[in-house]
């Protein structure tokens, strides 16, 4: 197992992205720190797209680098999601950054590129160490991003909360990993997975503690109950595009590793943890949706909504672990990233135009102020709520199908009931946009190009996948996700 013999070409996208990120970082240094740097933003987007193309070109054949770095359809699709997601986040950030002078634009872009890199490594890793490194790249970058408006009280407070709780979560993950390593003597997920049945018989308690610690730590990242506490505050305090990033890329990447670790490492004791995940999924859906009901701030609302959405994504994991459930999860992830990013870009737009407020009432009469944005937002929210002819509906429907097919009727019922409860708050926003009159001093909304582009892309994706889901489903169904 000499690493030199490995097919390093599999890692080309990561290497190229790393290099490009360095390049962006360097250019930023050379061009002065306080400037507006739209070209760096464009360069970053370009880098991400180049990487995405490289992923498409280099990765389809699959393979691995010494049990440590895996390239399979699962990793590939997740990487594409991550890259496109980060690109969209950057796109929506560009105008935001121009309006917020206290943000150093170059750093912002390069850090986002690094998070993309970290997330890519995360979803590709088949080794605890690699995985941990990827995770920490994402995490530490996220801490910094959350506090990027360093003169803003909310932003710094969000950041410190995030880092303290996130650090603790990392410690839990590591603690769990240390047991796993100690009991197997290896950090390779494949070997751990192979040893698992025997190991579980011998060291039930330690394995379960390790498993649950890791689940808790990863659960922190995906904001599942009861490890969701940070989310509303951090989402609320962080700059809105960063919130979008946390709600989408960071969360989905964490889902990626949950699936990876639990599939490779713990599949043989699926019965031992599936019901725990099911319980957590149920609680997550209930708590997320219930608290969201009473929220009057859109960003906090989206935070709770994001918690609830995490619960939905957990349902397939709790039901069955196979290609099919991964297909369902990935389809929902695609839908989720579309609708969430679309929604957040409009939230960014609206809150920037309402003096950085994010109360529900800032959306009052949006339909009169900008019909396109209002309609788009409505469609994103409908999609999040799971109403027909949107990607979110198909995604949710697939989850139902899976859950019922997997004899998880009770979970499906909780899911559908909480989904319907969620109508209340999603339609609450819609009500503001369409039924309330605009505030007297509300100005006409000018839509910057970046946001227009993000909204258009995500809207197209949301609607297209809602009407023709087979575009993706047929493709996904053909994949053998994990080699």
């Amino acid at each position, binding site marked *: 197992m000499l690493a030199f013999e490995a097919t390093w070409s599999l890692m080309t996208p990561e290497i190229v992205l790393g290099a490009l990120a360095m390049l962006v970082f360097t250019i930023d240094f050379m061009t002065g720190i306080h400037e507006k740097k739209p070209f760096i933003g464009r360069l970053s987007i370009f880098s991400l797209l180049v990487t995405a193309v490289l992923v498409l070109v280099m990765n389809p054949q699959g393979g691995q680098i010494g049990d440590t770095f895996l390239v399979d359809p699962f990793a590939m699709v997740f990487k594409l999601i991550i890259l496109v997601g980060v690109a969209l986040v950057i796109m929506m950030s560009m105008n935001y950054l121009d309006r917020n002078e206290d943000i150093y634009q170059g750093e912002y872009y390069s850090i986002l590129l690094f998070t993309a890199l970290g997330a890519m490594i995360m979803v590709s890793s088949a080794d605890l160490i690699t995985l941990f490194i990827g995770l920490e790249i994402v995490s530490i970058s996220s801490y910094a991003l959350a506090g990027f408006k360093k003169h803003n009280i909310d932003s710094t407070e969000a950041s410190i909360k995030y880092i303290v709780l996130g650090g603790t979560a990392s410690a839990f993950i590591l603690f769990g990993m240390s047991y796993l390593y100690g009991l197997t003597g290896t950090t390779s997920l494949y070997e751990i997975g192979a040893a698992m049945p025997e190991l579980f018989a011998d060291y039930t308690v330690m394995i379960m503690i390790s498993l649950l610690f890791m689940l808790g730590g990863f659960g922190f990242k995906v904001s599942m109950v009861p490890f969701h506490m940070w989310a509303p505050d951090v989402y609320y305090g962080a700059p809105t595009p960063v919130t979008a990033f946390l709600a989408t890329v960071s969360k989905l990447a964490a889902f990626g590793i949950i699936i990876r670790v639990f599939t490779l490492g713990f599949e043989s004791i699926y019965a031992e943890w599936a019901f725990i995940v099911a319980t957590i999924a149920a609680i997550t859906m209930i708590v997320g949706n219930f608290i969201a009901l009473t929220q009057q701030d859109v960003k906090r609302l989206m935070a709770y909504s994001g918690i609830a959405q995490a619960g939905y994504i957990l349902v397939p994991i709790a039901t069955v672990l196979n290609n099919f459930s991964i297909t369902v999860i990935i389809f929902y992830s695609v839908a989720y990233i579309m609708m969430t990013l679309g929604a957040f870009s409009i939230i960014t737009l609206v809150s920037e135009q309402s003096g950085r407020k994010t109360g529900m009432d800032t959306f009052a009469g949006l339909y009169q102020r900008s019909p396109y944005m209002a309609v788009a937002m409505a469609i994103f929210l409908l999609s999040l709520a799971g109403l027909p002819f949107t990607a979110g509906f*198909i995604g949710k429907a697939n989850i139902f199908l899976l859950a019922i097919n997997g004899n998880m009727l009770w979970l499906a019922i909780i899911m559908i009931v909480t989904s319907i409860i969620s*109508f209340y708050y999603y339609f609450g926003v819609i009500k503001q946009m369409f*039924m309330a009159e605009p505030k007297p001093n509300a100005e006409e909304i000018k839509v910057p190009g970046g946001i227009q582009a993000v909204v258009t892309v995500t809207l197209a994706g949301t609607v297209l996948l809602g009407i023709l*889901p087979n575009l993706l489903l047929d493709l996904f169904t053909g994949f053998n996700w994990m080699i």
Partner: protein
Amino acid sequence: MMGNILLWLIVVPLVGALLILTIPREYTNVIRSLAGLTAAVALVLSLVLWGMFDRGAAGMQFYEQLEWFTLGFMQVNFEIGADGLSVPLIALTTIVTLFSIVASFTIEHRVKEFYVWTLVLLTGMLGVFVALDMFLFFLFFELTLIPMFFLIGIWGGKMREYASFKFLIYTGLGSGIMFITFIVIYVQAALVSFPDPMSFSIVELTEAYTEGAAAGAVGGAMKGGMFLALFTAFAIKLPVFPFHTWLPNAHVEAPTAASMILAGVLLKMGGYGLIRVGFGIMPDQAARFATLIAVLGVINIIYGALLALVQTDLKALVAYSSISHMGIVLLGIASITEAGMQGAIFQLVSHGFISALLFFMVGAIYSRTKTRTISEMGGLSHSVPVLAGFMLAAAMASLGLPGMSGFVSELMAFIGIFGAPAEILPQAVTLGVIAVVGIIFTAAYLLWAMQRTTFGPPKEKYAGLVDAKPMEYVPMVGLLAFTILIGVYPFILSDVINTTVIDLVSKIGG
């Protein structure tokens, strides 16, 4: 494909809605005419469908099946078709919608959106009635929620937000239960038929459950649960006691046109679903729970009527009368006879016209008197004789006066319930008698309401009211004409329905 009239029916309103979107909002008259035109085209199409429909043939006509998407072994198709159950309801939908569009020409507030939503709603409703894939059915079923939410929420009365959210969540919950049940039904059948692929097709599932593989393989308890869940889901829409409480709120707050559509068509989707899916797929369970359904039907009739009797708001009264009348549908279905089934479908159609007319009249009167409180009205026959006359006609239709459509449906339902086979419905006669007594209450609340509104000494404050305007004659005369047409010569309707009904009921035997 291009020739399928059902497809055109779904597409036309959508195209109309898109066209309206392109018109600047200031051109309200253009928007109104375009909306009316779209609905008229849909109406013409539905009448063409009515004409083309082969009365003698059982099974689906104008059938179309396109692959939509697959998920694992699950196949979801775009599958549409029509039979004697859906054709009348399609016609009802287009008629009521057209009239409600005409009725809302008086709306001045956000005209463009109003018609866009109405036309989207029309698409959804027509979609429900033509969809033969359960997935598609659910999609359209759910689609109707959104426009109605807006119609109530934007153009509604004082409590519109409460009402619109209640409507949304409550009936949304019903759709949710329905969806889960659909999937359970599907999965059960698919597991049995495995490895043969199975689609969500209602036709295919009907076959599977009635004579195919799933018929014997799926357990009785399971099937019973599925049927009850399905029943609950549709009961919320219909609505059936005790799931009815969203309806009065929604009706009282909704604008006239929305009330017309809500009572005229949306409730019918519940009855339609119950017959198409509940009865169609699990006729044995329908027979098993016939007593339950009949009892609920009777409760609906009596309870709705008694509540209507004590309402102080005219619109609430009409809303409760809807609840009461939907009991007839349940009763007809529960009898599991051809007459009863015929009666149930007749009632769906007939109540569609009558309730739309009633709501229109209430709206027209409200727009003049500015009150819906019954005690504040009176003497309207003097101030607005034509409106009062139509109101009276509508009330008569509603209380089941022969010569109008309501009577035929009640008669059929009663023939059905009294003739119900004893092994299915042992208490048929008792239930039937109680239900028939309910129609006395119906007469009581309607007549009492008429006595207090249109009759009585003329009131000073209503002296200067303008009587019916030309535009108002269109829905009034139109809806009344259909009511009378069906009442006088029900053959035109029964002819279309009959073959399908025979087919449906015959499944009980086999």
